[in-house]
């Protein structure tokens, strides 16, 4: 008699996928404001002056806070013990992002790079919906934890490398945890998100600092 990885799992895949639908319902009718906010952020990174670009980390911080409060503390923590402490780490990340906003704005990003990243993130947010078979299970950054962590890692590439490292720790911890959970649940499509997250975080850790003349 031996233990298998899924012997340690406290809940079923069905309950996990329902977390996404429930978050969607809890945010109605504001749910669709979230992708609009992300598009505005992309526009800011492309066109806005440095002062206005500081809104990007502030919005990211709000996303980490919202994810912690609703998806994690309200829905996920009651069925998975470690998620409660993680929610507090998410709150800490939100705080760090606000501090970052006060210290350094992100550099501007060209349209081609932006479009590529938006496409990647869009594809990733479809994974849980694909698994659950309903649009209601769409995983948006700023609302659900894996996508919040992945999107933050992408956006942090717009800061000098030395500012990124501290902010990539919590996303890395979360993505590692989520990979294990989704592996045990055998949820292969959703697993792509935190697995891509680990990869993107590694890339972001070593990606050279992009210098921008207006980065004052």
């Amino acid at each position, binding site marked *: *008699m031996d233990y298998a990885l899924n*012997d340690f799992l*406290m*809940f079923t895949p069905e*309950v996990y996928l*329902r977390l996404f639908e429930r978050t969607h319902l809890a945010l109605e009718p504001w749910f669709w404001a979230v992708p609009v906010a992300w598009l505005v952020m992309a526009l800011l990174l492309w066109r806005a002056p440095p002062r206005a670009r500081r809104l990007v980390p502030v919005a990211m911080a709000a996303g980490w806070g919202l994810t912690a409060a609703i998806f994690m503390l309200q*829905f996920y923590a*009651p*069925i*998975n013990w470690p998620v409660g402490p993680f929610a507090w780490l998410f709150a800490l990340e939100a705080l760090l992002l606000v501090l970052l906003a006060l210290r350094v704005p992100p550099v501007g990003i060209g349209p081609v790079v932006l479009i590529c990243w938006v496409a990647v993130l869009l594809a990733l947010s479809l994974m849980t919906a694909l698994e659950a078979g309903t649009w209601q299970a769409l995983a948006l950054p700023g609302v659900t934890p894996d996508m919040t962590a992945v999107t933050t890692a992408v956006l942090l590439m717009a800061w000098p490398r030395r500012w990124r490292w501290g902010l990539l720790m919590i996303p890395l911890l979360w993505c590692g945890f989520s990979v294990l959970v989704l592996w045990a649940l055998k949820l292969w499509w959703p697993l792509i998100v935190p697995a891509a997250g680990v990869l993107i975080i590694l890339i972001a850790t070593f990606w050279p600092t992009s210098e921008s003349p207006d980065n004052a």
Partner: protein
Amino acid sequence: MRLPIRRRHFLLGLAATGVAVRWPRTLAGQHESPITRAIPSTGERLPVIGMGTWRTFNVGNDPVLLDERARVLELFFHSGGRLVDASPMYGSAESVVGELVERLDRSDDLFAATKVWTRDERDTRAAVAESEALWGVGRFDLMQVHNLLGWEGHLETLQAMKAEGRLRYIGVTTSHGRRHEELERIMTREPLDFVQLTYNIADREAEARLLPLAREKGIAVIANRPFQGGRLFDRVRSQPLPGWAGDAGVSGWADFFLRFIVSHPAMTCAIPATTQLAHMRENMDALYGQLPDETQRQRMINDFQEI
């Protein structure tokens, strides 16, 4: 507003959900009694099929899944089931069971079995009180020390609580064949009403020493992981049931596995867990009819090993 699912709503609810579920065969029309076994320490009889809640009842505060589990639990009680097993380790399962038993108005039918699961051996009374609040029961029928964690301190307090009339029965649990030697020592020395251990057609280590010892000492036995966490079904997938089993009244593989377990003379009850109405119905089939005799049990083992 969400309608409470009470017994009178139950049939209506099943029809509305369109679930093609039939009654456990012996409930449909016949008035056969469920198979029961006596708890050796008192002689009180328990139905041989109970229900586990690990993973299956940890649905948190999801209203849709709470309604689905309410239907599963109602079918369990309706089919004659009584013992529900949970633990503080199972996430929200204790509070879910508590909420649903109240919603179904089934507290009189419930044999409430949970566990103390804390390393701190001075925390027993607080842990029991916390579980009582979650289940909404005034007194547990059975309180077990989960996986022997801190068993010495906990058992001492549980014995005192039983003497005070705060608990009806006490016991200890283990699973996956772990710590059988230690369990044997505890069974030999401590006055236990129940032990819970893993026993199924593929995991039969308990047959060698623990089950005979339970009989000798008059300890009731609960079999956990009766389907090896569901893996037994992977092994028999697409395999037909042996012909003789069908003739002997075995309705399917779930019934086959459960009848094998509860036909062991030391066994009091098996506690399969499920999220599905159709599976609950199959599992409750094993609560009625004839149990296999020793020759048929041997045949079950041989047939299973050949798969």
